């Protein structure tokens, strides 16, 4: 019940912020369009990059949105107040996960739809799986954002976790340099980063008509990373502070 109320409250906050909603929906489509024109004469490169980006955009955007939203809960005193009510910590964390996960579903459906029908993206596997990976990635962004917000005292600091936490994952996920061509130690780091598995799952959808066992394993690993980040985030929610 409390979880449901919290999810509803976060979605209501989002609804009052029309500009954010518009940007959540429109920006990924605009960026994909940009990619379309960049790679217009480059054969199948667009397919590979656009597919990867459909996974990366929700991760980045939800990480940012969540870390700022959670930081606001901390700085305006609402978090302290919530923790004096019967609410459990997980009600709050899952509330954010579900609310932004739903927002990411809308975003993922619009972006994926636009990529396939307007921009001519083609994959061997189904578009539904692309949306699934996109939403899971968004939830990963939410979970890491909830955790990282504990280490920021201001919005300035929170925003800078983007280059620290998100950018290395994008650089090492196999988009720029295929992972098997990386130096051993770089590949080892890449293996430890959850985005790597999400991007690999999308590559599997691009290559095979049916969902592969590798793809499911990738998704299990990403889901595991989500749970780990949420547990760590719960540990940062302290009922008593100095």
């Amino acid at each position, binding site marked *: 019940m409390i979880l449901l109320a919290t999810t*509803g*409250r976060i979605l*209501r*906050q989002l609804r*009052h912020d029309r500009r954010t909603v518009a940007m959540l929906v429109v920006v990924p489509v605009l960026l994909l369009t940009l990619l379309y024109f960049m790679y217009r004469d480059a054969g199948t490169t667009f397919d590979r990059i656009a597919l990867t980006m459909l996974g990366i955009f929700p991760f980045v955007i939800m990480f940012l949105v969540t870390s700022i939203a959670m930081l606001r809960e901390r700085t305006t*005193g609402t978090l302290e*107040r919530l923790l004096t*009510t019967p609410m459990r910590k997980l009600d709050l964390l899952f509330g954010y996960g579900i609310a932004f996960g739903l927002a990411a579903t809308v975003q993922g459906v619009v972006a994926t739809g636009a990529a396939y029908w307007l921009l001519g993206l083609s994959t061997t596997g189904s578009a539904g799986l692309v949306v699934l990976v996109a939403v899971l990635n968004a939830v990963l962004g939410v979970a890491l954002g909830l955790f990282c917000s504990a280490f920021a005292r201001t919005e300035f600091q929170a925003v800078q976790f983007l280059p620290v936490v998100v950018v290395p994952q994008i650089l090492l996920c196999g988009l720029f340099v295929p992972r098997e061509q990386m130096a051993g130690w770089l590949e080892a780091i890449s293996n430890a980063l959850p985005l790597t598995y999400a991007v690999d799952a999308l590559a599997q959808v691009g290559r095979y008509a049916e969902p592969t066992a590798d793809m499911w394993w990738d998704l299990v690993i990403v889901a595991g990373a989500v749970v780990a980040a949420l547990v760590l985030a719960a540990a940062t929610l302290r*009922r008593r502070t100095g």
Partner: protein
Amino acid sequence: MIEVNDLVVERGKREVLRGITCTIPTGLVTGLLGPSGSGKTTLIRAIVGVQIVKSGTVTVLGEPAGSASLRRTVGYVTQSPSVYADLTVRENVRYFAALYGLGAAEAERAIDDVGLASAATQLVGNLSGGQRSRASLACALIGTPRLLVLDEPTVGLDPVLRADLWAKFHALAAEGTTLLVSSHVMDEAGRCDRLLLIREGVLIGDDTPAAIRERAGTDDLEEAFLRRIREQVPA
């Protein structure tokens, strides 16, 4: 109702509360008075159970402060209004009602109680400071808590509203709610049933307003407070 025993709290390197011992009786409005920086908010946070304490104990309704069982019975209003600026008054209060398993009717009652019915559909972010703190208060009135802890709830309110809220506080006390209200405005001290005077982390008075006036030999509580301070700190 509340028993505080030799409570010491440090923030940074500074001792903010230096061995406070007091009892807050049931069903009364107790005022916590002291200048800014005297430790009022820290004492309140300790009573609500969100403050890390160095030593001493705080017992609320027979339970250690901050116990899970107290989360249903203690209402807490922080000094700066802790409500969501990007939600309407109604959405805020309904959310807090839902946290206690209560519905829309209870939320409307709390909104009425603080006189915000006409602003219920406005975003909290667009309200005046006084309205915002009343919205925050409404969220604490949900479920009629047995203990209501209010940190400077009347700052920035016009005199009529202030009088209304104090009447509300006494009405709640008459129904059996225990209230602890902090203030740095001395003219509010006279409205309390009991007063705790705090200065630099030390309790320098714990009595009824009448007794404090009588002992100091003045009708003016501000003057009485000053005389008490001079007694404690010989020049």
